[in-house]
């Protein structure tokens, strides 16, 4: 905008104020929320920002104070203006600080409104405050200061959660805030903070989980599923992530991919392998070698895949889960040996000599001596991946006649 007259600027600010008070008086959530959506970069807000640049703060204050309709919301409006203005100027830190004030004032008002008509607006604020905080943190970090705004946003959101978590019509919004909190906590690495929120969501009897909006449920299940992956509680993780996958909007492939990224390792560790086409479809080929290794009993392939994608797996937090697949690979390997022996001599097939396994390892170029392989066999038996026993004196794995290699069938490896 090249030039704007003072009058025009005033007109714009007044228009914003009018929309603001109209929205409140009509309880028009849709138009109300658009007034707060900084990150939407809507032309209306952008032009308002330009207008605000022109007008002095005192004049803005005067505009707000000219009518009771506005002045009673001065706590919301003033910092909001400031935020809109500074956001436009690229001063993200200041924009965040002002927006946080707006948010706090808004929460105050929101509490007093009986109905939940402004819930959507609250969503917008919750979302924007998180996004703004992330941006402000980036700005802080680039200036060599410690980024702490996201943390601050987290505590604001906790407060929002507090206003919503009670009973009543506002309760519906609690899950959305929870999900935003999850995002913050996962980003900050303070995942332990999720626990209290989860407890409050899951123990609430007055509100059935299914009554929350679907998209929030999906997000919630995704994050709690990830938490279960950390805890290596695979059945629960499987349930939650599968839930998320089932209800996720099929159009949003990125989300499905994110879910699968965590669901696949979980499924693998309970013995369920994905089709290659699935991996291809969602571009999850980093798992293809692992799946292959599990099919073939190829330890080298597994280790190679883990090494190649180590950073990736560590970042998404599934590394340890994948690493544990080694035992299944060993099992597969022994099973293959057993099958070969059975072809040669069915009567002696259930006795697998240790040296045979050691030799197989050598072929796989895995450096393991007899003792170590013996130890692995002991662990396999101990974990019930192999039925049978190990005879130390003769160095032989004696397999059970019936079902020597039990399938996991959706159950995790016993520990």
């Amino acid at each position, binding site marked *: 905008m090249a030039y704007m007259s003072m009058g025009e600027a005033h007109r714009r600010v007044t228009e914003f104020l009018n929309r603001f008070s109209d929205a409140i008086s009509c309880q028009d959530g849709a138009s109300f929320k658009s007034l707060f959506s900084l990150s939407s970069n809507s032309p209306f807000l952008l032009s308002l920002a330009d207008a605000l640049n022109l007008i002095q703060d005192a004049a803005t204050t005067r505009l707000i104070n000219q009518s009771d309709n506005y002045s009673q919301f001065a706590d919301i409006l003033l910092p909001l203006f400031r935020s809109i203005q500074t956001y436009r100027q690229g001063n993200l830190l200041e924009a965040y600080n002002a927006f946080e004030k707006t948010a706090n004032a808004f929460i105050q008002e929101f509490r007093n409104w009986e109905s939940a008509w402004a819930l959507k607006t609250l969503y917008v604020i919750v979302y924007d405050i998180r996004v703004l905080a992330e941006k402000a943190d980036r700005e802080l970090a680039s200036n060599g200061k410690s980024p702490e705004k996201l943390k601050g946003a987290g505590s*604001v959101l*906790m407060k929002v959660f507090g206003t919503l978590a009670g009973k009543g019509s506002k309760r519906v919004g609690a899950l959305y805030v929870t999900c935003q909190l999850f995002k913050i906590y996962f980003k900050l690495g303070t995942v332990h903070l999720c626990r209290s929120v989860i407890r409050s969501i899951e123990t609430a009897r007055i509100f059935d989980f299914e009554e929350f909006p679907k998209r929030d449920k999906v997000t919630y299940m995704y994050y709690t599923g990830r938490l279960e992956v950390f805890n290596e509680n695979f059945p629960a993780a499987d349930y939650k992530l599968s839930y998320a996958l089932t209800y996720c909007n099929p159009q949003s492939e990125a989300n499905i991919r994110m879910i699968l990224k965590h669901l696949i390792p979980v499924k693998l560790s309970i013995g369920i392998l994905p089709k290659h086409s699935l991996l291809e479809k969602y571009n999850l080929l980093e798992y293809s070698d692992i799946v292959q290794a599990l099919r073939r009993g190829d330890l080298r392939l597994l280790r190679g895949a883990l090494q190649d994608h180590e950073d990736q797996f560590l970042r998404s937090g599934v590394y340890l889960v994948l690493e544990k697949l*080694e035992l299944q690979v060993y099992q597969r390997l022994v099973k293959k040996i057993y099958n070969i022996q059975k072809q040669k001599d069915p009567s002696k097939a259930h006795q697998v000599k240790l040296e045979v396994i050691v030799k197989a390892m050598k072929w796989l170029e895995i450096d393991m001596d007899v003792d170590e392989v013996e130890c692995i066999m002991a662990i396999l038996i101990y974990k019930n991946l192999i039925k049978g026993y190990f005879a130390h004196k003769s160095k032989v794995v004696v397999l059970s006649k019936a079902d020597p290699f039990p399938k996991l069938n959706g159950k995790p490896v016993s520990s």
Partner: protein
Amino acid sequence: MANEGSNTETLAPAEPHLFENRHVDASQHHPASYAPTTNGSEAVSWTVHSSTGNGIYSNPTYQYDQHPQPPGRSIQDGQNVTSVAGNSSNLGTANVTQDYNAYASYPSSSNPYGYGSVGYSGYYNNYQQQPNHTYSQPVGAYQNTQPVGAYQNTGAPYQPISSFQNTGSYAGSASYSSTYYNPADYQNTGGYQNSSGYGNQATMWNNGSYPSHPYTNYAPDSSGSYGSGAATTPVQYQQQYKQWADYYNQTEVSCAPGTENLSVTSSSTLGCPIPAVTSGYATPNSQPPQSYPPYWRQESNSSAIPFQPAAVNSGDHDGYWKHGAQSSQIQQTNPIQPNYQSPLDLKSSYDKFQDQQQTVSSQGTNLYFPLPPPPPLPSQQVNPPPVQSAPSSDAKRVSTLQIPTNPRIASNLTFGQPKAEKDNSITSSAPKPAYIAVSLPKPTEKVSSNDAANSILKPGMFPKSLRGYVERALSRCKDDKQMAACQAVMKEMITKATADGTLNTRNWDMEPLFPMPDADVINKDSLSSAQDSLLPKFKKSPKRFKSRWEPLPEEKVADNPELISNNTVKYSGWVPNERDRKVAVENKESKEGGFRNTKFSPILQRLSSKTPQRPFKKQRLTDASENGDTSSDSDKEQSLTVYYSAAMAFSDSPEERKRRENRSKRFDLGQGHRSENNYLRKKNAGAGNLYNRRASAFGLTKSFEDGISKAVEDIDWDALTVKGTCQEIEKRYLRLTSAPDPATVRPEEVLEKALLTVQNSQKNYLYKCDQLKSIRQDLTVQRIRNQLTVKVYETHARLALEFGDLPEYNQCQSQLKTLYAEGIEGSDMEFAAYNLLCVILHSNNNRDLVASMARLSHEAKKDEAVKHALAVRAAVTSGNYIAFFRLYKAAPNLNTCLMDLYVEKMRYKAVSCMCRSYRPTLPVSYISQVLGFSSDERETDAAFEECLEWLKAHGATIITDNNGDMVVETKVSLSNLFVPEPEDAVAHGDANLAVKDFFARAPPPPS
């Protein structure tokens, strides 16, 4: 909070008296309640009260007798709690009654102090308690605050929602006014005396339940000021009320960002300073103002006074300031005034200061008034004139003047507002009163010792060696003044020695000469009249007030929670000589006034001096060692420092003696360079400053943690950083309970030496740990973060690992993590490996593990130690015991030590696995070899035996097979395996903490 807990427990004893009193008061004061028109009559009634109050005041007992208080207080606290609890649901009248509880408690409480103090204790308790409550009970917090009258002011406005209830009650209430009037009643009696009483109480509390007394401050002021305010100008109240409202609004907003409930109390105290915030509160809180005025008046007057210096910093509050001034004026005119001269030190000191500042001249005599002092009327009278003459301009000044009276308030409010204070100081030429807060109630023993000193100083009672010592000391004196000073000091020493029975046992020949007292100081402070000495200093101070002003408010802070305790413990104990000497000197000249003087002196000192402090740490050390030598006396210090004296056994070495000499010499030489006058007190003052600064800084951060980060940014951490002056290489670790004293903190060079000493030391881990902790502490308080810091932490971490002291190791590790992150070089790879091992082996948290693995850089992954740690991790996660014990034997650095701690678990897992997997048997020799019992350097037999024992201890069934080999019968063993209780298990889980163990490992007593 601990306080809270205890309070609630003591609920039961709530006395019937209280209630009676309550009602009585209520009835009495209803008539008097504040209709603005009835001022005159009210004033009359007050005067009466005040007169009675005065009579009570003279009660000599309360000053020093602190013991009875705690029970009383706890009881009252209990009451408060109950009232609070009930209150949450109560409205209007109910509140009123509870308010009465709080107030009523005065008369009934079991304090020996005399009425005023008693009342205060109760009163005070209320305040004190509430902060606790609010902290611990986030939800109920504001409700709690409401019930108590004075406190409401502070508390109620802050909580937007719940406070409304109260407001409602306020509006309707004649009852409220009555509640407040009750205070008026006691004001007369208790008002300011109480403030003095606070001093005592403060000490007690500091000792016991220290952390949060934020609201206590309000109590004294409110009462006193209130009375005055009420009497004179009702209109004024209204104004003030408005101010308060504004003020509250501001504070309220500040609360908002944080979690409201939680931060209410904290933010309220601290919130005050934040001027910029707009008022969210005012609107919702639509209470009829008329109802308020009485209520507010109290506060405004009362709290305004304390607040002004501290809380209200910004220019916005000018109006506020003025009001404060007015109120103060009013006070003086009030009949309550007599109350002001409370026998307590604080009170007296306050008066004195005012006098001196304003009229300087003869009132100074007050300074040394006798122990059971009758209210010094002259001083009070002096006060009013200046204030009245220039009421508006002096507003700030007045406020500052009043600060001293309420050290508590100042402490709380001053937090983090040093700048504002500066402003004050600039405008007002009377910063000194603030120092008064420092005046520390002396431990009673000293009093007695002083008396004793007089009697004991007769000739013939001294041992010869002592006489020699005296002669030596006196020979140093250059002129009469010094001579006199020395004599005074020595008398004090002797008194002290006599008091603790070391007079004859002490080796006076070995006793280091005390540093030369400065004759001037002594002359001024004790030999000549007190006013003379004090006044010049005051005059001096304005010049430097900027530098000195800052610490002032903090001093008060220190006073409340920390300084006082320090005084009793540290100053009296550790630095007995100097302090006592001082006392003695003063005693000699003016027996009765002596106390006050000593108390003041540190404060004054601080004002006038900012030179480095003499390390009193040393003194303490030598003291301890001397005690150790004579060993017969049962000085408290000794028990404290037995261990240390052992460590300090070398203190008698020639080297050490030389150092001592140098030390004492430097005081003779340093005249031009450092202001000697002060050095005696310097340490006190310095310590006080730091305590204050620290305390304030902490207070700020603490209270703002939840909410407003803005204020935190305002803290000038650099200004708070200590610069150590201690030259001692060895130093015992003592957890700081207060701000560090530079005199006990070692600068970096010394710390470096200290580290070397520890590294080369042959002593046991406990000694080294202790030393390293003290080094760490010194580094921390000086904010030294460099390679030395890294080295210290690395050294300590390694030692801790070797010893198996995981908690200590974890502390070091977490510090190291941040230090490395700051880019300071060190053995970060080594410690990355330790960290990994620690996470995998001990925290068993997958998320942490993944996180720390993800943090490893590529170079790190190539490092031997890190590789090893990663391999160990893999072995552990897969349960591969073979790999684990191979890695165990090949561990670089101290990785072994960390693995050591996991060996038992791993072995047990391994044996469980083996028993499950192997059939029918498994040779013990194999297990021994595989599970790391045997090693290259060890006899196989021994390893075998150990393994056998281990297996048996864990329930394995062992038989001999056909070949005569010992084998584990796996199938039978499988169900019988168990983890035996470790033999050296201790109930609290940390064997290192076992007392027996500790003593066994402690260094041998000095021979």
